[in-house]
């Protein structure tokens, strides 16, 4: 028997829909941007944990500055790189709150490296979501601390050179060796399976925060197809071929 579409499309048969904590506002991100998927996961997890009334998100400077427009929770926007300091105070002053930062590679690994490392070293009970797409998206595709050697950006137009620009900064092992971190993992959202794993990782980070286990960092090795000058589908291929070699997926620390 061939079922008709209208027989399938019924509320009781729904297995996936946009999480209700994700607002109806159209996201300003470029088509295919990884930010949207990660936002969606965060919204789903907060909803599933029943923490929508107790969560405060800390948005960064960079493309994700407007994260506060898209997830229906309390938000505070931090100065460039200072999200971990902001999160530190929020969590210490209101320990019953779920506090997470959402930071790009420039925010977390360039201007905010100091705050990131010290918050993690103090073992602040916060979750850090780190979007690493190896480029500055918001300002127009400049070199990020995590830009790969040879990678062309608007400030390394002939490719990043170690002698001129230094080496890609690999944050996760740095964070993993700190006594204050309990969970450091690298994930991606380029396939359905990867999205499921990333969701489990972010959920774990949020649960660690509420259990007072210390700092968790979930690095999402992401794409920036506009900055990389590729289509979204090509970006995913480039991600696998190049980014994963420098930033391999998996848990670096899970205590």
């Amino acid at each position: 028997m061939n079922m008709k579409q209208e027989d399938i499309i019924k509320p009781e048969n729904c297995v996936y829909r946009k999480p209700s904590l994700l607002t109806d506002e159209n996201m300003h991100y470029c088509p295919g941007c990884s930010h949207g998927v990660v936002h969606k996961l965060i919204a789903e997890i907060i909803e599933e944990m029943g923490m929508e009334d107790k969560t405060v998100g800390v948005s960064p400077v960079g493309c994700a500055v407007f994260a506060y427009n898209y997830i229906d929770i309390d938000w505070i926007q931090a100065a460039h790189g200072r999200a971990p300091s902001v999160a530190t105070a929020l969590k210490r002053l209101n320990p019953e709150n779920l506090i997470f930062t959402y930071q790009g590679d420039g925010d977390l690994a360039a201007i905010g490296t100091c705050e990131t490392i010290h918050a993690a070293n103090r073992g602040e009970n916060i979750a850090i979501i780190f979007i690493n797409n190896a480029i500055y998206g918001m300002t127009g595709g400049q070199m990020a601390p995590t830009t790969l050697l040879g990678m062309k950006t608007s400030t390394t137009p002939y490719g990043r050179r170690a002698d001129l620009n230094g080496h890609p900064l690999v944050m996760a092992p740095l964070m993993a060796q700190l006594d204050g971190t309990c969970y450091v993992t690298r994930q991606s959202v380029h396939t359905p399976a990867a999205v499921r794993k990333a969701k489990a990782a972010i959920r774990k980070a949020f649960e660690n925060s509420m259990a007072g286990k210390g700092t968790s960092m979930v690095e999402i090795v992401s794409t920036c197809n506009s900055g990389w000058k590729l289509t979204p589908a090509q970006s995913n291929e480039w991600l696998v071929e190049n980014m994963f070699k420098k930033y391999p997926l998996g848990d670096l620390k899970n205590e």
Partner: protein
Amino acid sequence: MESDIRLMKGNEALAHAMIRYGADGYFGYPITPQSEVLETLEAEMPWESTGMVVLQAESEVAAVNMVYAGAGAGKAVCTSSSSPGMSLMQEGISFIAAAELPALLINCMRGGPGLGTIQPSQADYFQATKGGGHGDYRLITLAPSSVQEMCDFVALGWDLAFKYRTPAMILADGTVGQMMEKVILPEPRRRRTEEELREQCPWAVTGKKNRKRNIITSLELNAPAMEVINNNLQAKYKRIEENEVRCEALNTEDCEYLIVAFGSMARICEKAMELARKQGLNVGLLRPITLWPFPAKAIEQAARKAKGILVVELSAGQMIEDVKLAVNCQVDTRHYGRMGGMIPTPDEILGVLKEMFVK
């Protein structure tokens, strides 16, 4: 009940006043000459008595952003530093002002520029009263001249900060921070409960329980909307200018010569004024307590019959610009200042006054 009288440094008084105010948090970073604030708080361990959070941050930059967050959560939070550290905090202060958050900031000024010296100075007057950070914003700036005022201005600063949802700064000089004096400590108040905080600060980010979500941000890319935000800020600053001017006037009625000085310099100038009056000179002293809003009207009134105004500062001459504006350059206004941590004596000031105006 007997009052609680102690002998302590100005910096120590700040710390005790915070705890007794019912402060929720202090975030700081050591720098001479104000490290006693953090040291006293760590020694008092208020987290065990009142639940106040005390944290030594990794930098002044981190500390001020912790204050931004705490203020965003509606908490009574504070940071303190001295001049170079305060320079590092300016971005965060601009964010606090732009997001309209109540916070208490303390600058125990030392000599600059650069790393300068650890000796007292008043050379951050411009930084405190004219903005300091980027954009059009103002700081309520309180200038204590005694250890008692160091103590009292903690409560005043926070009360004003919450009343107007704007950062307030105690602009102390190193002298007031380091000197020991008798101080009457206030009655301890308990910290606000979560319910009280939610009622007083419905805008705070504490989780959106029983309300729509709150967003604290200073970003607005839409130009007309950003202009409205700026206009609203300026309207608030105008209300503060109309209502919150504070100053102390001594012998200013019909005075022939007016000295204007703030903070520890006002104490020394008070002695200079006494010496002058003993010599038959009709000298008055006006001490701005709020450096912003500036007591321009009071100065204009005090100087109506004056032959000259002497502005004495531990700087190359910063407040003098506001004094000249206050009298619209209609009165001969001169500056005397020492720098680098040097402090003038009362005799020195009297000598300068006589040389400049009396002759």
